[in-house]
């Protein structure tokens, strides 16, 4: 009887040992799966935040082209783009306001047709952007309104793109 009970206890310990090994294996797989899932979630979140920031920028009254306060959809004013760039580069208070709004990001407005022009309106990228491989740019097609001048009495609209890199 004594030996039988000892054998039974040993059996139970063995079963538990195998059970815990299987459990540990399952945990290792689960943690690996969960890590890859979190990485994917992080990329998705960064994509969403980039999109939101791009939407915010395209709707900024400081950039939006308007006729008596009525603006077009995704239509930016070329003079406002330059003015915002000048203000952010020269006015520290204004720069702080935009840092709290845009965070660590880079906002580029590109004119792509008929001519090519670039404005890096805001750049607060972290130092080692090469190391952050999960950040992807978000693009929004826009039109840029160039106010009237000697050649165009009513001004003209040109095609462009808004490029936003959001780092967090």
């Amino acid at each position, binding site marked *: *009887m004594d030996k039988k009970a000892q054998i039974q206890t040993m059996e139970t310990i063995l079963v538990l040992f195998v059970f815990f090994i299987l459990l540990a294996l399952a945990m290792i797989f689960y943690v690996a799966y969960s890590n890859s899932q979190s990485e994917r979630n992080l990329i998705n979140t960064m994509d969403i935040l980039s999109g*939101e920031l791009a939407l915010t920028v395209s709707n900024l*009254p400081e950039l939006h082209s308007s006729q008596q306060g009525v603006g077009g959809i995704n239509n930016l004013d070329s003079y406002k783009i*330059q003015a915002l760039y000048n203000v952010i580069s020269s006015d520290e208070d*204004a720069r702080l306001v935009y840092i709290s709004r845009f965070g660590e990001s880079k906002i580029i407005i590109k004119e792509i047709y008929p001519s090519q022009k670039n404005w890096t309106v805001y750049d607060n990228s972290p130092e080692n952007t090469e190391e952050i491989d999960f950040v992807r740019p978000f693009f929004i097609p826009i039109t840029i309104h160039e106010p009237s001048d000697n050649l165009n009495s009513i001004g003209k609209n040109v095609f462009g793109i808004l490029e936003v890199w959001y780092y967090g």
Partner: protein
Amino acid sequence: MRDNNTTNHMNNLKNNNHAAIQVSLHWLFVMVVGAVILIFFLSIVMQQRRISEENQLFELRNTMNSYIEGGRGLDRGLISVSTFGAEIEYECSLIGVGCSCNLIFNNKISLNLDNNVVFAPSDLGEDNIFLSTSPWRSPYKVTNFVYLINPEERFILVYDSSDSSLKKKVEDIFYNELPDSIDKQLIPSSLREPIEFKDLNFPRRKVIIFGKLPNNVPPQLPEFANNKNTFIVNIPFVLAESDKVNFYSYNELTDRFEPETQSFYVGDSSLIGSFYIDNSQNYDCAMQKAFLNLHTVNKVMRERTKLLSGLSHCSTFYGDSQIELFDEIRKLTKDPSNWAQIDFPKLLNNFDKLKQQNNIIEGQGCPLLY
């Protein structure tokens, strides 16, 4: 022989007892291990449940952020946002010279609203909430004000019936500015007699009184409304572009509504904003942020005017006199935390002058100032 039998019997009994104890110990061991395994799995389930709840709150937080950010681009809109049963609170606190406003979800996760101008009651409930927007212009568009409305709140608009000019303005606000989805009622009153309205079992109510109150004392409300869940907003001169807003809250000790604080509205959007708050500090913070936005946008508009002065055919419209108007607005709004001290008539005068300049430029076919 008899002695041997007795000894054997004793030995058998001893062995049996020993075996029984070992079997019991074996089962005890199995039960302890079983309990440990059960506790282990239960703790995993509990942890997963907590993580899942937190994820849901984060999802809700991000959704609210998207709606509020999106609201900045939508001039006039109203949407209903599901809160999935999460309790949402709105809180503003003074930090240094500035102000910080947060939405707090289930007392666990918070969303900082940065420079978004949001008007909301302290308790947004735990059901759907309405999000509505309205542009704030001065005279160029500065930002969109975002209003978060608790559908469990009732709005009673009372106006001084003796002032005929008030009726049109208040009706315009009632029918065109306040969304139809909320529960609202319009009541003409002498502002001296008690105000009568029915109890529709709303947990919260806001009484907005247009017109000058006799001795600055609000009229008596029905008995069911005399409690902490009722908040009174008084706008003595609603026809003005900018004027005072008085907030009254219920004092349990005196059993009366007593003045909480006095503030100001600038334009209809901020007037409407005062209807949705139930705490004067939250209103003050929202307006601070509005003036911070105005100050920043004004800098960009000034810089744009300077750039436009380079246009040879229109340069006369973007000279020093126009830039001075922007400079004046910049000086008046340089300290947004003290926005209530601004010389509002002077500020509004500058807005009017900018409007006039814009109208003149429009007639000449040159780029507008805004």
